[in-house]
């Protein structure tokens, strides 16, 4: 008997589902949960995705977290320069984290406090400005209450309000999903503000509202997030992450 799916595995399935329909693109998740999700999506329903070993090669096969890429066939040489070329080509879907994210999807992982003299310097802008304006982005937020914010201190990745001001220059802009420890969110509303897309099993709507300090669209009867099936769980537990690294991402 398979042990029931736990929260980390439900989040992995939810992020994997963000790649549904992507076809042949470079799937570029960052962090353990997103990396497992990308590899799960390719192994189960999106076989044409390309995935890197996080060093310099796109590899075929079910590479485990921390596994030796030398055991898997190289499909393409992808040093950092080539990764940026893929960004600009648009054939890429990235998953990034967010220290703060607001109702329009503006994301900050650069700094807390004023940008020129921050109270806490975080990762910096990294590749967020280029990613958002060139191709699909999904956010992974392991602690919704901590990250959902009325506004962000620094805009690393612009949201839909900023994109609207840019007009044609933002024609490749898309925030596909925001996956948190409580639910799955998207921006499929008339004004592209955030909407609850599904709620994780065992989470009630009050928990969602309590962890959302801004106006949000909640459907009358929100669907429950997909529970990964036995094959998904086998892949996650036995193939991709036998050491349970994914569980360390919830803090």
């Amino acid at each position, binding site marked *: 008997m398979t042990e029931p799916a736990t929260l980390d595995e439900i989040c992995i399935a939810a992020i994997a589902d963000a790649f549904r329909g992507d076809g042949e693109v470079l799937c570029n998740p960052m962090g353990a949960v997103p990396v497992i999700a990308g590899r799960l999506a390719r192994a189960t329903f999106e076989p044409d995705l390309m995935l890197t070993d996080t*060093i*310099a*090669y796109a590899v075929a096969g079910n590479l485990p977290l921390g596994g030796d890429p030398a055991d898997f066939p190289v499909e393409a040489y992808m*040093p*950092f*320069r080539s990764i*940026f070329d893929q*960004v*600009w080509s648009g054939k890429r879907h990235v998953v990034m984290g967010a220290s703060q994210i607001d109702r329009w999807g503006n994301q900050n992982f*650069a*700094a807390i406090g004023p*940008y*020129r*003299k*921050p*109270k*806490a*310097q*975080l*990762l*910096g*802008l*990294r*590749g*967020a*400005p*280029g990613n*958002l*304006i*060139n191709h699909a982005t999904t956010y992974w937020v392991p602690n919704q209450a901590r990250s959902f914010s009325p506004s962000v201190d*620094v*805009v*690393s*990745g*612009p949201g839909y309000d*900023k*994109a609207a*001001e*840019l007009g*044609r*220059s*933002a024609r*490749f802009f898309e925030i596909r999903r925001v996956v948190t420890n409580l639910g799955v969110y998207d921006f499929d509303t008339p004004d592209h503000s955030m909407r609850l897309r599904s709620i994780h099993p065992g989470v009630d709507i009050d928990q969602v509202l309590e962890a959302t300090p801004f106006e949000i669209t909640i459907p009358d009867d929100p669907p429950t997030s997909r529970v990964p099936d036995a094959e998904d769980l086998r892949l996650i537990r036995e193939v991709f992450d036998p050491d349970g690294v994914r569980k360390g991402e919830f803090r």
Partner: protein
Amino acid sequence: MSHKVMTEDQVVAEIHSGMTVGIGGWGSRRKPMSLVRAILRSDIDDLHIVSYGGPDVGLLCAAGKVRKVTYGFVSLDSIPLEPHFRAARQAASIDFSELDEGAFYLGLMAAAHRVPFYPTRAGLGSAMLSENPDLRTVVSPYDDHEELVAIPALEMDVALIHMNRADARGNGQFLGPDLYFDDLFAMAGKLTFMSAERLVPTDQFLAEGSVHTIRIPRIHVAGVVEAPMGAHFTECPPDYGRDEEFQREYAATAKDPESWSEFSRHWLELESHEAYRAKIAERVAGITRGGQR
């Protein structure tokens, strides 16, 4: 025939206070650390550093050598935040220009190709553009009239890079998985100095790597330094990986002035790269002995 072999200190003699210095590598990977440490030993200051930054940027900031940093990121990879750089940003003790990682590549390319800028959409709608007084936009002269960010050429007086192999004439070879952007740094520098793990005769490059790895042509290189372990403690595969334990110690001691000054005395205030290598060798021997007990 040109012969460009020199020492770290001879390279540093070509660098002057106030200059813009580009540093190759990526984060805590294949950084020309023996050249960076030689700058730390000198009285040069007021530098503008251009880098996909790692401990190169952190060390120079901690030593008060830096006026400004232009960067795509600053990170130690396995430790996401570079502690000295973080402290400098939070104290606002340095000026800075932060570019999207890909945009930084365009700035290097513009400098290498001697054009004023390359256009991109990266930065539109984000703090990269709205918070950076150095950046301007440009409107496409074609019918689309699209507005784009003009990433300025990252011109530099001096560029410093580290390769696995080089010859005495200034050709360079990388043997690891990624060249990063070191060929562009070499072209962007008015003067480029290259350290290498080992100097080899030109006809020996192909003994260790395919033709595709001989990526730094000597026309862009003013001087070559033989520096075994020259990238330590950053990684330099296949010659050696990152010294994670050393890096952890570096990051931990950065947190208070007393342990930092001790670390600095022990590892940085040495007369030469040879002295540093000897210390590293002693440390490795100590760890090995300790492991056997």
